């Protein structure tokens, strides 16, 4: 069941075209207002696009109302019907299709068990926790036997720790049932951890599409590098350009980057993720003279995060996994930083300026 979308011409969505493969779990992520929710709503038929076509499988659904598109939809507000019990909610899909009562009840209890929902028949939505409610909403959507699952910020209203667990449940159920899923969220970690592919959107357009690993390790767009995970950005100019590596000059300091494709004199921006920034004490011998002073040093739990103000004025963030004996650095301490060479990704310096290109809101 392929899903293909044609061009769209709303202010919120600017000629978006996307193809999703059968049984794929894709996430669409982007800052608020980028159009991801609008896209999902057009797909569902809740909103009408100005132009363009939508196909689910081989069916053209462009002009069909939502009830005829055979989808399952999950809402950020959860939207369980308050006047019905949880079981009745799940049974709503079969009921409106006119299915036989007994058969429907069996089906419903199968789904509820599959979703690992431990709730009694008489329980009402307001008696359930946020996570249980959203799981019930998921069961309800599944019980309608959809071809395609659309999830609109399904975890947005839940506590952080509930989100962490529920996201994997979402993927498990979708994969177990062999469904195709399109999941919209602003939480990039959530998207990275459960998707087969990611779609990054900004201001109504698709910026980049790829697998999580691809987009994280070698993002083709600056915005992707900033939006997916964190990154340090170092503007500079290419001093030497050889085959296989270039040397970039940054405020007098030099950086050897093992990439090619840039000419001498070109302005570039190097993106480097905080986990690729290593700290050595100031006296340690290294092949890079990048030194600075520690301005912030925090134990985050699984990582240690250090902020350094470099002598050339730039700010660097380093984030190292906590292996049990994290080195303690004091604020004000002088350090030397080292980069993992494969973590340096160069880009052309953006025409409209770095801040605009990277803007998250």
């Amino acid at each position, binding site marked *: 069941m392929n899903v293909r979308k044609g061009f769209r011409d709303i202010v919120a969505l600017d000629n978006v075209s996307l193809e999703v493969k059968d049984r794929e779990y894709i996430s669409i992520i982007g800052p608020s207002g980028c159009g991801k929710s609008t896209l999902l709503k057009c797909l569902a038929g809740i909103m009408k696009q100005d132009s363009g076509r939508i196909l689910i499988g081989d069916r053209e659904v462009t002009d069909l109302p939502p009830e005829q598109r055979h989808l399952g939809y999950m809402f950020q507000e959860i939207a369980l019907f308050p006047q019905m019990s949880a079981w009745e909610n799940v049974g709503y899909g079969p009921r409106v299709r006119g299915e036989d009562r007994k058969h429907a009840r069996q089906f419903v209890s199968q789904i509820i068990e599959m979703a690992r929902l431990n709730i009694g028949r008489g329980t009402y939505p307001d008696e359930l926790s946020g996570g249980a409610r959203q799981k019930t909403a998921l069961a309800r959507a599944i019980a309608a036997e959809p071809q395609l699952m659309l999830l609109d910020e399904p975890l947005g209203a839940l506590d*952080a720790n509930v989100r962490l667990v529920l996201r994997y449940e979402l993927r498990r159920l979708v994969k177990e049932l062999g469904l195709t899923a399109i999941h919209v969220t602003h939480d990039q970690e959530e998207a990275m951890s459960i998707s087969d592919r990611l779609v990054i959107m900004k201001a109504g357009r698709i910026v980049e599409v790829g697998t999580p690993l691809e987009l994280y390790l070698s993002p083709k767009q600056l915005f992707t590098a900033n939006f997916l995970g964190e990154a340090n950005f170092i503007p500079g100019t290419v001093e030497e350009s050889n085959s296989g590596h270039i040397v970039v000059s940054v405020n007098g300091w030099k950086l050897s980057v093992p990439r090619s494709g840039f000419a001498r004199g070109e302005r570039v921006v190097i993106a480097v993720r905080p986990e690729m920034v290593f700290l050595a004490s100031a006296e340690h011998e290294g092949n890079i003279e990048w030194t600075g002073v520690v301005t912030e040093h925090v134990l985050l*739990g699984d990582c240690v995060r250090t902020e350094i103000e470099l002598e050339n004025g730039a700010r660097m963030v380093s984030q190292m996994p906590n292996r049990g004996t994290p080195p303690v650095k004091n604020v004000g301490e002088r350090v030397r930083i080292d980069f993992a060479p494969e973590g340096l990704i160069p880009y052309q310096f953006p025409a409209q300026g770095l801040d605009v290109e990277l803007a*998250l*809101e």
Partner: protein
Amino acid sequence: MTSLTSITLVDVTKTFARVRAIDRISLEIRDGEYVCVLGPTGSGKTTLLRLIAGLTSPTSGDIKLDGKSVTYVRPEDRNAAYVPQQYALFPHMTVRENVAFGPLARGFTSEESLQKADEILRIVRLAHRAGSSPHELSGGMQQRVALARGLAAGASLLLLDEPLGAIDARLRVMLRYEIRRLAKEVAVTVIHVTHDQQEAMSIADRIAVLREGTLAQFGPPSEIYTSPESPFLANFVGGANFLEGTVVEKKPETTLVEVAEGFRIAGPASAHLVGDAVVASFRRERTSILTSANLEENVVPGKLVSTSLLGVFLRCSVDLGRAGTIVAKVPLREAIEQGLPDLVGEAVCVSTNRDAVIIFTRPKRPLAVELEAL
């Protein structure tokens, strides 16, 4: 600029219609401290904040600010500014008027109040938006106005209720440091309520973890992370793996726990005795995956079920058979070097270090319930 406030709660309880929202909490917050109150929804965090603000009175117990009991003092006399989750900016006033509200209410003239407002707006870097209406501002800016409003009123204590709740995930990371920086620059005591443990870990001087109305633990982030006092805390702050087992041997520096047939986890010396039912827990980021290993202590075999990308880490889920499932957070570079993404479905071993293991007495409730899993 403002005098700092210390806060003391002595055995405070708050009951709403037979439900104990806050159950006998005592704690002391030093002046100038940035304290995060962390807990799941419904644990009583907002109630605690409202009690300190004076918006509701405790059913029993005493609340002191700067050593003086304020339990019966009205909110307007307490100097503790409350910033609710949706900021509650006054929509019919401009940014400047919002910020000037506090001084005006306390009796300053309008000129003085506006001057004070301008001063604070400069500090939060919103002077250029002083004439805007609240709804024209972005979420991050609205939050700064809410903070500015509290500061301008001369508050020496800021009570923030999930200040980053309405903000996008990526921005949250940036803005949280801003709030802390501002608080320290202006030198106020802050109580910041959140359900996001990463947020609390990254900016708090100390974290008070609430669970069902009681104080589970109160201490600096590193302490809660390294020495959690219960499995719930180990799981809630930082996440951990848990293996149920029995103590089989005790050596001077080691306690050996058998978690499945023949497999043992070695932890540090503990007060438990041989035969005790325990839970061995270790952090996911302290768990490694070995593609081939000798089966010694702290090495347990299993099957790599799935991998998923978290960014800095690759999250690997390993099925240990009867012993349960383990999650290992392996730094991404290492994981790729090991070729883990392609090893899904293969047999691997998980291992951890002795000093990374914390041994808890097995709780009376089933572990899943105790950890408040879904």
